[in-house]
């Protein structure tokens, strides 16, 4: 069976809705500093928007937004941004994830930490989005026997 319906209203609606969800998701990621939200929630919402497109438009056409084979590599990239931030501070003489060793000029210690948090939230968001979409794609691989 295929979950993509070919209802034009649905397609249009989801196409219209998706950018807004994505915008909101980005807001959630970056707003994590001030209110509820953060990388994980934002990433999950981003994934939800992609899933919305996949569900309504069908995987073939919505692949333009996020390719099927990207799941794990982009997930790895997201996690690598996180781990790389830690590694950077480690290489610059600090402990792992000791953000005030980040090489950003003209920032106070607290601001450096804030920047570090932002950096890793982006990484988390990317990873979560990619992986959740990847899991969905894997499940949708179809019921062929093996």
């Amino acid at each position, binding site marked *: *069976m295929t*979950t993509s319906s070919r209802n034009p209203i649905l397609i249009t609606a989801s196409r219209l809705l998706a950018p807004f969800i994505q915008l909101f998701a980005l807001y959630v990621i970056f707003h994590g500093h001030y*209110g*509820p*939200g*953060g990388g*994980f*929630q934002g990433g*999950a*919402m981003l*994934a*939800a928007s992609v*899933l919305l497109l996949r*569900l309504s438009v069908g995987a073939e056409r919505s692949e333009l937004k996020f390719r099927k084979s990207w799941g794990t590599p982009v997930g790895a990239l997201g996690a690598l941004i996180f781990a790389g931030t830690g590694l950077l501070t480690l290489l610059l003489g600090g402990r792992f994830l000791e953000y005030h060793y980040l090489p950003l000029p003209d920032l106070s210690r607290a601001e450096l930490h804030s920047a570090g948090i932002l950096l890793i939230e982006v990484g988390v968001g990317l990873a979560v989005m990619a992986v*959740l979409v990847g*899991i*969905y794609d894997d*499940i*949708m691989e*179809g*019921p062929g026997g093996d």
Partner: protein
Amino acid sequence: MYFGLETTLGLFLLAAALIALRLRNLLAAAVTLSVFSFISALIYLVMGAVDVAFTEAVVGAGITGVLFIVVLFHTSRRSVD
């Protein structure tokens, strides 16, 4: 921190859990699980855990629910118990 509210929601939660486990129609069970997640998110909210509530709402009611339904479409929808 509302004592009565928490307990009431907790009882709802318990009921949702039992229903989700009892329903033979797995699709209905999956939807009930989403409801369960949503109620639990409400309880987190009542207890002041806004971040957790937000996450649970996005994940439990959103992603997990969608995945559950997709999986059920790919497999069988009925359960013997």
